[in-house]
Each structure stands twice: as structure tokens, then as C-alpha cells.
């Protein structure tokens, strides 16, 4: 590992988008606050500090406002976006990074002493609950419009979530397949299962996409003829899709848990 390669990796940070930079900066700011251990300010102040940091950083990095939006609206928008990114950074620490800390603290005692991690709690728990509430607060579930089939709308919601989830999991593994193959073989094997060529529509497609295509095709058939047979077929395909999404979420959780 040469010095040049270290600097080459660090230089890549300059090409990060503003959102990624603010997110990373919030995480760094949170750690700085935690390590400083201010006696007059408890660690419980970290979440609002991180959220405020994200809001201010986004204000600075947001750039000039477009001509069709007033400056005040643009700055307010950047402030809100930054707050959400700061909140996401804090959630990421609570849900993922704290577990990585525990894991690394078990391997490297100096890190353990530095961060003084708490004993791992039960899986899920309050952070997961907060994450759920936070997600609901920022997304807001809407009621299904009159005239729309709840069955079809919910299948389409699963298609949207499935597309995003498979993308997230497979691209995460794609960043360094060798790393995950060695350090998280179960996760990598699951990704390979999602990638397995599967027959669909007279050709082969990765299993994850084949599941989406199959569900979408059966949904199209069901919308054209809402018979019981077509409904059963679509429901069966929907179960397969939801099962794959649930497994993807489970693996995302498992690979971020410490191994003691």
C-alpha cells in the first residue's frame, strides 16, 4: 500500500455529490462530538447537533438558487433537506455504525477503549422503531384513491420497493465482491442467488429481475381480466417477490451485526 494509492483514494472524496458529502460530514461531526466528551454537554445532544450540522452544511453546499425559485424558498429547502440527511446519518449510526463499532472494538482493543461501546442490545429494538417512525414521518403513507384496486396498488408498491431493494443489495455487494465473498459469504451467496439466470419471457434474466418481470406481467394480465385464476397467480407471484424482499432486508441486517 503506497502513499500515492492512499491519496488517490482520498482524492475520490472530492467527486462525491453534495448529499453524500453532507451525510459523511454529519457522521464525522457526530464522532468528533462523541470523542470530545464535553462535560457540560451529554452525548444525548448528539442527534440535534448532527441534524443541525447537516442543515447548515447543506445550506453552504446547496449552490445558487434556480431562477424560478426565490432565494428564501431555496435556502429553506436546503435547510430541510440537510436536516433530513443529518437525521439519516444519526439513524445510520444508531442502526449500523454502532454495530460496526462493537465488531471492531472486539478485534482492536484500542478502538474499544476509544469509543467505549455499549453492550449490544437485542436486534431491532428502539432504533428500529425510531427508524420506522422517522421513515413514516418523512414519507407519509397516502390512502388508495377511489376506483383503484388496493390489490394492484399494493403489488405495484412491492414492485417499486423490490426494484430499490435489489438495487441496493446487489450494488453493495458489487462494490467489492471479493471482500463480501470472504467476510460475508452468506450475503454474497444470497446476492449470487439473486443474480442466477432464470428463464423469463423467452430469455434469461437475473432471478431478481425475473421475479419483478413475472409479477409485473401477471399484474398486467390480472388488470385485463380480473378472474379468480389470474388473481391467484398474481398473489402467488407477489408472495415470491415479498419473500425475496424480506430476505434482502434480513441479509442487510445480518451483515451489519457484530460477530462475537
Amino acid at each position: 500500500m503506497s502513499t500515492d494509492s492512499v491519496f488517490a483514494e482520498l482524492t475520490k472524496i472530492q467527486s462525491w455529490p453534495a448529499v453524500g458529502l453532507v451525510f459523511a460530514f454529519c457522521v464525522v461531526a457526530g464522532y468528533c462530538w462523541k470523542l470530545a466528551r464535553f462535560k457540560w454537554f451529554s452525548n444525548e445532544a448528539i442527534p440535534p447537533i448532527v441534524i443541525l450540522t447537516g442543515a447548515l452544511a447543506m445550506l453552504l453546499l446547496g449552490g445558487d438558487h434556480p431562477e424560478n425559485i426565490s432565494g428564501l424558498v431555496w435556502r429553506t429547502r436546503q435547510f430541510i433537506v440537510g436536516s433530513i440527511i443529518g437525521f439519516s446519518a444519526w439513524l445510520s449510526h444508531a442502526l449500523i455504525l454502532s454495530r460496526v463499532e462493537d465488531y471492531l472494538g472486539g478485534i482492536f482493543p484500542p478502538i474499544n477503549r476509544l469509543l467505549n461501546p455499549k453492550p449490544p442490545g437485542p436486534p431491532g429494538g428502539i432504533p428500529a422503531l425510531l427508524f420506522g417512525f422517522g421513515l413514516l414521518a418523512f414519507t407519509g403513507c397516502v390512502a388508495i384513491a377511489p376506483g383503484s384496486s388496493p390489490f394492484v396498488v399494493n403489488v405495484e408498491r412491492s414492485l417499486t420497493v423490490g426494484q430499490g431493494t435489489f438495487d441496493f443489495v446487489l450494488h453493495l455487494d458489487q462494490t467489492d465482491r471479493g471482500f463480501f465473498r470472504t467476510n460475508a459469504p452468506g450475503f454474497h451467496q444470497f446476492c449470487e442467488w439473486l443474480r442466477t439466470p432464470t428463464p423469463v419471457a423467452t430469455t434469461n434474466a437475473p432471478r431478481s429481475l425475473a421475479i419483478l418481470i413475472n409479477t409485473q406481467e401477471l399484474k398486467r394480465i390480472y388488470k385485463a381480466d380480473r378472474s379468480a385464476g389470474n388473481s391467484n397467480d398474481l398473489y402467488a407471484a407477489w408472495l415470491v417477490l415479498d419473500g425475496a424482499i424480506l430476505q434482502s432486508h434480513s441479509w442487510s441486517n445480518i451483515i451489519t451485526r457484530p460477530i462475537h
Partner: protein
Amino acid sequence: MGAPAILALALQLLPVIQHGVPQFIAWLQSLRAAAQQAGEWTAEQDAAFMLAIWAKTQDPAYQPDPPAPPAP
């Protein structure tokens, strides 16, 4: 393990973080889009979804590992 090992691990994780954060945000956006969907997709949305899915078949992230070379 010493500081070089920690630095090497951090460098190994850097691309994972660099690519993982935008993907994580994209995943959150997909959840948001799903939660905000009120009605059935139009024919155009159906077609756009299928186009996006078929386009992903060429995405390297969706391609399986190449078969391992035969043992000597």
C-alpha cells in the same frame, strides 16, 4: 493489528461507503415512492417500469460471478 491494518481496512471500506450511501438514499426514495403511491400505474408508468427492469439486465451488478477456473 496495528494502525496500518486499520488504515488498510478503512481504505477497503471507503468504496463501499462511497457507493453505498447513494444506493441507500435511492433505496429510501423507492420506499418513499411506494408509500406515496395512491392509484394504479398508468400504461406509461407500466412501460417505463418494464424498460427500467430490462435495462438492468445489462447492469454489471446483476451479473453472476464468472465460473471459477478449473483446479490444476
